[in-house]
């Protein structure tokens, strides 16, 4: 599929950097084949106590498969496992637990309506003296110990669904540690965390490190790789393509290893010098979802950022503009006309929302690519209300070519596409609807590096053609590199606006984090 990796750096398949002692866990020559796909091809991987081992790779590179082999969910077709230098077998999750391996997936395994303590010790409750009952006092005492260990300041009696994402993540970690995890595998743990929560997580990770816990950390964020990593392993197409130490490599080099070609991470674009008419204007917008007094403007040809910490109200602003949440005060004007009604009215007025959670809110996973591409544009494609499958397919085919969506056919189920291609489908459905104002909520979440720059190239093309874009992103670097202007939110309000000249990560962070 890919040509010779001409640009591949010197680290290619170099011997593992010298380290003291025996790895706590070593995998040698692991292969795993699924029908039609070689998910892992002769991958060797070792992790030492007390280190943070970064696992890098694009989506589909084999990171998840490797994780699942590690935790016993998959059985490798070939390869050997060594635990503290001893050859062992990991055939089931129970085996993995016995060797102290715990995995924290992006989708948590917590039970929302049980409390923190019950979740930590789920299935391992302490028996009471009365047979059949559990010792609740001991449960909360032990849970408190775990919470102290990870420095999470919540009452162990709090129901998990009342916690924020970051706290839930901490509970997951606590749960793993309470099972004597010596090897903790984390899949993009900071994807949903704010900067401050991320800091807190890193602190806990450092403490664990000091206690000799080995951490395997999957990330798409370069900054984290260099801030935390003691060792880096890069996978591509199920193969091990490189090992490196952070001090001896650079982000560019790692990215080149991941994608096998040069990708410009700075998404260069020509910034709008003379933006066009005002497409979106909100005045004093408040909504049932909690946002208050939002004033913002987006002009044609502009990419306007909406940043701030997670939970500062960015998604809520998008939903209120789009009519998904009710407006309680103020107004939204699209092309100068007040928008009333729900999302259908907004879509009709030329607004399209590309939501944060693609699978839950952006796509109908059981339907085809063609169906999903047509869904928003049905009234526009078929003004006489009679639907024609042929015309829908032709329209889909055009979009597939224009957006370069990798799918064997328009009739392919959208569920099997990669994250980047699914995102293109969500964008495509609004193109079919003739949308003029695109609201992107975290457009690159869970998308690999190569697809990210494609998405940004696409957004750039949209504004070049006269569309207006409002873009929410938690990655400040994205906002800084892509946006003409940005609004910063804090506590459900807009607290400032940054023009192109002032747009820097430091300014965004300073405005967004300022305490009252």
């Amino acid at each position, binding site marked *: 599929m890919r040509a010779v990796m001409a640009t591949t750096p010197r680290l290619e398949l170099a011997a593992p950097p010298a380290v003291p002692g025996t790895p706590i866990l070593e995998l040698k020559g692991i292969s795993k084949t699924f029908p039609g796909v070689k998910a892992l091809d002769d991958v060797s991987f070792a992790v030492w106590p007390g280190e943070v081992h970064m696992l890098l790779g694009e989506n589909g590179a084999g990171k998840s498969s490797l994780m699942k082999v590690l935790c016993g969910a998959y059985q490798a077709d070939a390869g050997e496992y060594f635990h503290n230098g001893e050859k062992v077998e990991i055939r089931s999750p129970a085996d993995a637990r016995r060797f102290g391996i715990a995995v924290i997936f992006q989708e948590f395994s917590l039970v929302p309506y049980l409390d923190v303590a019950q979740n930590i010790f789920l299935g391992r409750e302490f028996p009471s003296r009365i047979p059949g009952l559990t010792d609740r006092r001991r449960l909360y005492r032990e849970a408190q110990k775990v919470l102290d260990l990870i420095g999470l300041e919540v009452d162990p009696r709090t129901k998990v669904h009342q916690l924020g994402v970051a706290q839930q993540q901490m509970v997951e970690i606590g749960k793993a540690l309470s099972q004597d995890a010596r090897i903790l595998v984390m899949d993009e743990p900071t994807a949903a965390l704010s900067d401050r929560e991320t800091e807190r997580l890193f602190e806990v990770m450092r403490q664990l490190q000091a206690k000799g816990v080995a951490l395997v950390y999957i990330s798409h964020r370069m900054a984290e790789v260099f801030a935390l990593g003691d060792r880096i392993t890069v996978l591509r197409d199920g193969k091990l393509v490189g090992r490196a130490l952070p001090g001896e490599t650079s982000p560019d080099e790692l990215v080149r290893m991941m994608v096998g070609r040069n990708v410009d991470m700075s998404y260069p674009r020509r910034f709008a010098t003379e933006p066009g008419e005002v497409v979106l204007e909100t005045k004093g917008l408040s909504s049932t979802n909690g946002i208050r007094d939002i004033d913002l403007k987006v002009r044609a040809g502009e990419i306007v950022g909406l940043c701030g910490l997670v939970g500062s109200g960015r998604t809520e602003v998008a939903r209120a503009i789009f009519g*998904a949440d009710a407006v309680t005060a103020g107004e939204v004007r699209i092309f100068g006309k007040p928008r009333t009604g729900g*999302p259908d009215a*907004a879509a009709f007025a030329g607004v399209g929302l590309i939501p944060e959670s693609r699978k839950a809110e952006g*796509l*109908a996973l059981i*339907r085809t690519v063609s169906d999903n591409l047509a869904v928003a544009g*049905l009234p526009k494609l078929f003004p006489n*209300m009679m*639907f024609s499958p042929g015309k829908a397919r032709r329209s889909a085919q055009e979009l597939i070519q224009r957006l*370069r969506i990798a799918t064997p056919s328009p009739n392919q189920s959208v569920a099997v596409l990669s994250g980047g291609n699914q995102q293109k489908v969500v964008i495509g459905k609004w193109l079919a609807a003739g949308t003029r104002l695109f609201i992107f909520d975290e457009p690159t979440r869970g998308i690999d590096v190569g697809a990210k720059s494609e998405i940004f190239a696409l957004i750039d093309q949209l504004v070049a053609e006269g569309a207006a874009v409002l873009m929410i992103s938690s990655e400040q670097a994205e906002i800084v590199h892509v946006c003409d202007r940005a609004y910063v939110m804090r506590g459900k309000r807009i607290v400032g606006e940054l023009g192109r000249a002032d747009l820097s990560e430091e300014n965004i962070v300073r405005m967004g984090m300022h305490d009252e």
Partner: protein
Amino acid sequence: MSLAGDVSAGTPRIHLSKDMQQLLYRLLAAGLLCVALSVATDAFFTANNILNVLRQASLLFFLASGLTLVILTGGLDLSVGANIGLSACLAATVIKATGSPALGTLTGLASGCAIGICNGLMVAKLRIPSFIATYGMLWVLHGVTYYYMAGETIHGFPPGFRHIGSGYFLGIPIPVYLMIGFLIAGTVFAQRTVWGQQIYAIGANPMAARLSGIPVDRRLILVYAFSGAMAGVASIVFLARLNSAEGDIGEAMTLPAIAAVLIGGASLFGGVGSVFGTFVGALILTLVLNGMNLLAVNASWQPLVTGVIVIFAVWLDMVGRKRS
């Protein structure tokens, strides 16, 4: 980067979608059933019996076709049988009072449709789960009907009206024509209109449908109105066939109608199914029950067999969809 590559590599060949495959299996099952019954009994493959099967299937289909749209959105309408009861009794009253079958028919359809709209409003606007809303509606309708009828029976309608249920045209029962008409109309609506496509989209993912600019509330009200209206149609045909209306008319039809939809391949999770599939489902169910009658199997076995077929059909679907 292979993201955008490999697009044009696929070789063109006949590709049946999974829905198509499932439908073909069902048609095959119906065909095999016919062949088996023809071999096993003398009485099956006679014009009389075939027409009888089709007429029985038609009543089931009226109810099940409207229900299919509801189930496509991921909802359920448990009130259709009770809807038949009230609509039939109201239609009967109007016919008796005015002597006009046309006014009576209109009353039945309007009553069915109005009940459906109430269901739709409860589901779309009050956000009551459809199972609960229509289950409650079932009791309310029974209550109203029983109170209204007070144990009485209304019977004896003009021959012109009774023709709808028991008449023939060119040797084929009138309800069969109606069934074919609604089969075509329902299929065109579901497959070939924007509204139909939106209904599939809502069932596949209601949240994504709403955030794609589909007026979900209005479409939901529409499908419940359709379901109610089809119960109205069934009530008229039923009334015309029985030539009498009682409070509990149609009561026993809800569950068989749901069975027909499920045998026809629709998923209770929404987004999967078709009006034609439901037609085949109604046919299969009627054929099996007819065959059991002809083979003189004790009628007590019929519910059991219905249940087994539903479970088997849904299981086959799940297996078929999981593969590949």
